[in-house]
């Protein structure tokens, strides 16, 4: 039986007189174009005289570029442009001013297998490929480092000269008095958890189309999680005014964190179109998508945790090493987020976190949906160990430590709404957790994970969202918003909200979005902020338009605007739907009166803009936080170590489900990516810096035949600020699913796993070398404080 519990607060319905559209599972507005194949993705774009772009990449993990000779490639018939680092003046990209370490085309050195060295634009793919083979690059190979431990060794080769011991980012957080608190603890334990790299494997490989125009502007299409951020970066790098870099709307085939950053590809494609005066299309192969966009971080985390005799965490001291690959990317954020999710989830009166992001000669690591597997799975695994030691069950120990509404996180974020306790209780009840946990059958296990994520970060001038609404003569409306849809349903969310407010059907509302020329600034979809900020901005624009409609309608209906209601394409006095006036008529009247309806709305989250990832990690991080709990039930084949997940029960406090069907889809996708794939099979494997499994064949993301039954439970805490109370959907399930799978396999075998993912090989190894007592399966050297010489 598939169960979908969608409970609504009765009193809320009464207070709001019921919503007509939000809170309902209305099919997505973009679904039709996707089931007919009409939806245009970047690679589907065809423009007249378009050229094919291709990138020449470093075949070595670490090498000096001695010479690049492009003369033969340039002479090849059908080649229109060849560019190298010499054409870019060594322009560097970095998310922050202090992390600008990546040359958009390498000039002096390559730092990973896949680093961009040169690019061509040619008549077609075959000519472009041949041109690449004619570019002669002379390299001097350098010794490389491929994991955190060898990279921080004092004698390790430096990947970037200005970063001693290859430490790229250091995040330090220290709240309360950790050492003093440890002394008061009934139990203190330290364990180390290791996770390998995971990756996105969105079905659409990365692609860019760029076109330059006579007025000096460029248009760019590409899968992205923030058109405005991409435009800004391109404007800087190309030295073209921001208003002339027009990132266009395009259908996007998944992101999961992997489309957030700026890549050399879009810069290169722009450079090629500017050089040739012709549109250029660059389509990544699946391998390029794997190695030359982003991937997750491999991570080593040591948690030292002290509790009182009831299992309440009094102090935690955590050190994490993140394998960042060759460049900074979103390093300061990536290093912080695993801790931040954690401090939101659990109460921590005294906590210290020291996070190091370490350079290696591997592809660049970025943000991913299940960010920090070793951190999160380590926390929950260790909590289960403590619970066993104290004779407490996993549910109780989580409830005792779970974040409550109204509290403040250690780094100073007020948590206005929080349904974590409800998520824990509901998943435990629905899965019959305690009975299954206690009546343990050999080889079968049940585990719980809990987590929390943000809705946005302090992003300064690009942290908010604005929206406009115009009306058509027939009473239909067009919404204009900067929010981008990566596939999760943001476009639909905006339309469903606007239609609700305006009393229209979703079919009456059109949307223009994610185009930097036409739509106003938006934070982008990468910090789970789209519904919270973008949804609020559209809601406010719609309310503004509605007030304008009501003012005009009040003359017609001879009623006070505050007594009016918009519903079913009509405006009428509350309680008298039969004597209304059509919205179309009001719109037309407004046109005659010279008062056309033009709704505008904006939303900027109330966060502490002084907060900075490294220099000032305190203050309000996000205005709202989502919370989730997942319970997984597994069966383990103890001969092979293969794990079969049978049932997953997940609950998330998403604030309010604007569209429960879409929210459930996010949960289910989260379980597949975070739990089934993320915890059982997905990892990148390496050989001296070469990724052994860049392909979908060898990277083991799950198929439909691998998936367990999923029960989704929507919990609604009704956030005071989110639109209708909505926050974020899905990511905290992806994370808690990873933790739940991990704890379930552990429970099945009586083993505490500390190396992820739990491939059959690791599971079998742990079974064969099972330890006595409450210990992790493997002994890893702990991550410790790194003494760094002060940078000058």
């Amino acid at each position: 039986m598939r169960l979908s519990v969608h409970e609504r607060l009765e009193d809320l319905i009464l207070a709001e007189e019921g919503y007509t559209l939000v809170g309902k599972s209305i099919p997505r507005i973009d679904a039709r174009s996707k089931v007919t194949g009409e939806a245009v993705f970047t690679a589907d774009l065809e423009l007249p005289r378009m050229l094919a772009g291709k990138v020449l990449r470093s075949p070595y993990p670490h090498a000096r570029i001695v010479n690049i000779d492009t003369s033969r490639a340039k002479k090849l018939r059908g080649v229109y442009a060849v560019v190298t680092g010499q054409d870019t003046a060594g322009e560097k990209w970095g998310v922050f001013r202090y992390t600008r370490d990546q040359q958009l085309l390498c000039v002096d050195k390559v730092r990973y297998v896949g680093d961009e060295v040169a690019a061509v634009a040619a008549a077609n793919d075959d000519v472009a490929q041949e041109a690449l083979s004619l570019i002669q690059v002379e390299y001097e190979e350098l010794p490389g480092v491929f994991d955190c431990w060898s990279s921080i060794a004092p004698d390790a080769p430096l990947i970037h000269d200005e970063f001693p011991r290859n430490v790229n980012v250091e995040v330090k957080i220290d709240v309360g008095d950790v050492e003093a608190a440890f002394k008061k603890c009934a139990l203190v334990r330290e364990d180390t958890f290791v996770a390998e790299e995971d990756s996105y494997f969105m079905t659409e490989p990365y692609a860019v189309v760029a076109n330059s125009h006579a007025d000096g502007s460029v248009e760019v299409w590409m899968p992205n999680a923030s058109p405005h951020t991409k435009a800004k970066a391109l404007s800087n790098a190309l030295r073209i005014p921001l208003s002339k870099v027009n990132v266009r709307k395009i259908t996007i085939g998944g992101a999961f964190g992997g489309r957030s950053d700026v890549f050399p590809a879009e810069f290169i494609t722009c450079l090629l179109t500017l050089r040739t005066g012709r549109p250029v299309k660059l389509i990544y192969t699946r391998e390029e998508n794997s190695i030359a966009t982003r991937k997750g971080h491999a991570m080593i985390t040591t948690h030292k945790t002290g509790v009182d005799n009831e299992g309440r965490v009094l102090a935690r001291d955590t050190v994490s090493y993140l394998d960042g690959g060759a460049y900074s990317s979103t390093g300061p954020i990536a290093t912080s987020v695993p801790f931040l999710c954690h401090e939101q989830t659990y109460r921590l009166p005294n906590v210290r976190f020291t996070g190091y992001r370490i350079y290696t000669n591997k592809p660049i690591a970025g943000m991913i949906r299940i960010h920090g597997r070793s951190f999160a799975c380590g926390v929950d695994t260790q909590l289960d160990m403590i619970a066993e030691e104290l004779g407490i069950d996993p549910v109780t120990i989580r409830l005792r430590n779970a974040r409550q509404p109204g509290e403040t996180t250690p780094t100073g974020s007020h948590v206005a709404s929080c349904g974590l306790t409800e998520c824990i209780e509901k998943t435990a009840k629905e899965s019959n957790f305690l009975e299954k946990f206690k009546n343990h059958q050999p080889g079968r296990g049940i585990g719980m994970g809990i987590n929390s994520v943000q809705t946005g970060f302090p992003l300064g001038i690009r942290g908010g969202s604005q929206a406009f609404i115009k009306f058509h003569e027939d009473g239909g409306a067009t919404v204009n918003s900067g929010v981008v849809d990566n596939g999760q349903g943001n476009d639909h969310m905006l339309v469903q909200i606007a239609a609700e407010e305006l009393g229209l059907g979703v079919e009456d509302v059109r949307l223009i979005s994610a185009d930097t020329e036409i739509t106003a600034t938006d934070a982008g979809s990468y910090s789970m902020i789209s519904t919270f900020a973008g949804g609020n901005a559209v809601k406010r624009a719609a309310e503004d338009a509605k007030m304008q409609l009501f003012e005009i309608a009040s003359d017609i209906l001879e009623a006070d605007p505050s007594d009016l209601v918009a519903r079913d394409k009509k405006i009428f006095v509350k309680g008298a739907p039969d004597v209304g006036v059509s919205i179309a008529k009001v719109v037309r009247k407004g046109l005659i009166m010279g008062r056309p309806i033009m709704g505008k709305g904006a939303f900027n989250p109330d966060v502490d803009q002084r907060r900075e990832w490294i220099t000032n990690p305190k203050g309000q991080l996000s205005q709202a936080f989502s919370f989730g709990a997942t319970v997984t039930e597994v069966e383990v084949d103890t001969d092979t170590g293969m794990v079969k997940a049978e049932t997953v029960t997940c609950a998330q406090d998403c604030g309010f489900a604007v569209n429960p069907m879409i929210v459930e889809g996010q949960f289910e996708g989260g379980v597949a990516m975070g739990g089934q794939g993320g915890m059982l099979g997905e990892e990148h494997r390496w050989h001296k810096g070469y990724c052994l499994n860049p392909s979908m064949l060898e990277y083991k993301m799950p198929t439909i035949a691998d998936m367990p039954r999923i029960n989704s439970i929507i919990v609604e805490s009704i956030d005071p600020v989110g639109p209708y109370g909505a926050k974020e959907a899905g990511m905290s399930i992806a994370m808690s699913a990873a933790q739940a799978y991990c704890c379930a396999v552990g429970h099945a075998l009586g083993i505490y796993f500390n190396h992820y993912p739990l491939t059959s090989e690791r599971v079998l190894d742990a079974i064969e070398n099972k330890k006595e007592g409450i210990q992790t399966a493997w002994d890893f050297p702990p991550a410790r404080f790194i003494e760094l010489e002060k940078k000058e």
Partner: protein
Amino acid sequence: MKKQLVNMTVNGEEVELAVYPNTTLLEMLRVELGLMGVKEGCSEGVCGTCTVLLNGQPVRSCLTLALEAEGSEILTIEGLTPEDGLHPVQQAFIDRGAVQCGFCTPGMILSSKALLDRNPNPSEDDIKTALSGSFCRCTGYTKILDAVKAAAAAHVDPSDG
């Protein structure tokens, strides 16, 4: 390498094209015929986004030479869509929330259609097997499974028992 003629029926229309032997069916459909609903997700026959129906059977067009499809009937997502309305599988994918980013959707729908044509009343395992060659990264497959079940239920004549 010389171009060779190839004849086939694509979405009910007879086509004759001159293609280089190294042209895949995927490239022919996308580049020559503009059928962009056929997606290229991996180019190695793994992801299933390039799935089209060849004589009613799902095949990976990225691993099929255009010349090898000589004389066959090809159906792409564009050809599945009736002039009015939608195919029941398409409708079910919309109604059940089985569509997120949409990149895998054409392949999923065509594989589902082929299954239901062959087996109008499939079990859950039948559906899982039939769709096991198509990867979706967004949905966790739950709603795709629901959609195919719903399409099957809508298809099955209740009088059939």
